[in-house]
């Protein structure tokens, strides 16, 4: 089966020694990949590299027909529309309701048949938040905020969802709900690349594991 995304010997260094180096792996369609590593291992950095929020210093990332090296600013949006991103720190706009937050991301992709608003409502329904679409982030629990970020990541119907620590801020019960949601989405066809330092919680998803330590893949 062809790869959805493939990393080849990707390097990125922050000022100082930290960063990631020699990263190679791939994610296939509908796969559930769990990226495991201690805090500071470089998981977030790697996800930022995949979304090209950080540009690799060397190495190559392939995503569909695109490749990361020499990518033009005008191509960047097309790269990112293939991905849905759930951020570790949520990045919800506090002055906007759940619906408005999701709709902002929806407005960024114009080439889908459904209108942004309808897609947003549908995405919020998929994460079970239909009854709170007009609530502001501050009026919602952490688990509900996490659901908004997942809805926002889903709204442009990506092939691959990148989720950075989607359950680390949540209590046991809520995290089970969120993991069930991710599993459901994965079964519906979206590939998952999830970063976590609590891999045991994801056992029900039967993921493939990538272990990362000090910026390098160890297995």
């Amino acid at each position, binding site marked *: 089966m062809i790869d959805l995304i493939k990393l080849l010997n990707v390097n990125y260094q922050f000022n100082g020694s930290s960063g990631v180096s020699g990263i190679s792996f791939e994610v296939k369609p509908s796969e559930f990949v769990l990226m495991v590593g201690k805090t500071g291992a470089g998981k977030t950095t790697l996800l930022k590299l995949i979304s090209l929020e950080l540009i690799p210093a060397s190495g190559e990332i392939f995503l569909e027909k695109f490749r990361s090296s020499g990518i033009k600013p005008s191509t960047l*949006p097309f790269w990112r529309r293939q991905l849905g991103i759930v951020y570790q720190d949520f990045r919800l706009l506090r002055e906007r309701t759940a619906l408005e937050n999701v709709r902002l991301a929806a407005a960024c992709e114009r080439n889908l048949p459904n209108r942004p608003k309808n897609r947003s409502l549908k995405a919020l329904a998929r994460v079970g938040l239909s009854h709170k679409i007009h609530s502001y982030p501050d009026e919602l629990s952490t688990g509900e905020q996490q659901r908004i970020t997942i809805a*926002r990541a889903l709204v442009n119907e990506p092939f691959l969802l990148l989720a950075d620590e989607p359950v680390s801020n949540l209590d046991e019960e809520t995290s089970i709900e969120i993991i069930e949601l991710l599993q459901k989405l994965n079964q519906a066809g979206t590939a998952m690349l999830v970063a976590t330092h609590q891999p045991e919680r994801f056992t029900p998803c039967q993921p493939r594991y990538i272990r990362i330590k000090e910026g390098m893949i160890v297995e």
Partner: protein
Amino acid sequence: MILFSLREGWKNFSNISIIGLLSLISLTITLLLIGFAARGFILIEDWKSGMLGRFEIEAFLSEDTTKLRQVLTPDATILEGITLDSTFLEGIARQIKALTDVEEVTYVSKTAAARRFTKQFGEELFDLLEYNPLPASYVVKLKRDADPSKSWERTSIAIEEIPGVDDVVYEGDLLLSVDRFYRSFGTVVAIAVMAALIVSMLLTILSVQSVIRSKEEFIRIVTLSGGTRWMARGPFVMLGAYYGIISGLFAAGVISLISWIISISWELGTVMPLWWLFLIVAIGAVFGMIGAGWAAGRRIREV
């Protein structure tokens, strides 16, 4: 995309900051200046061409018989006083008419001049004199588009040189001072408009920049969700457009109010035509978008 920018731009506009307010005010002042300057120029232009239309050069024919004799045809009769034949009169008229800036020449005979005089000052004064002291003259009107600073002097000198013409009189000083005022008024207004424009552009750029700074999270979400650079910039460019449009509406409102007050209380000028007001709003929008586009282009480069 446009709709998106309109909506997001409005969100940016609706929680306007102090500096945003300042840029709004300065844009309004700039547009007011532009509006009033344009209005003023049109009024002055009207008034000036009205003046030019009314101003005349008067060229008086010589009363001196010996002088006249030199230019008259030998068979022209010269009686006591002077009788001039029509060939002679037409000859001078033709020479004046041939000058570049001359629009119209009218001959005023001695008798006609006397008639005009008595009409103005009564008969008594005239009856006191035994003879008619008023010379015959030509009343010369210049073309409207003639530049008064040069043409009046040039034309009067040229007329003066025509044989048989004794003296040329025109209200040149008044015209020149009108012209000088017009020019210096233009310079002052142009400088004021430029200064106001620079200040309001700077304020617009600053305020849009500060809004952009407070919206970095928004920009990041848009770009990471696959929005184009134009989608990231659009809302801020639109913010500038809103500044300009609102300022333009203010300015247009003030200008039309004032010109309405003037027109009803002094019956001067007319109420501003609607397209004028639209033009001011449009100019405002363009200014706002230029300033905001510049700010957004500088701050939202790499996405």
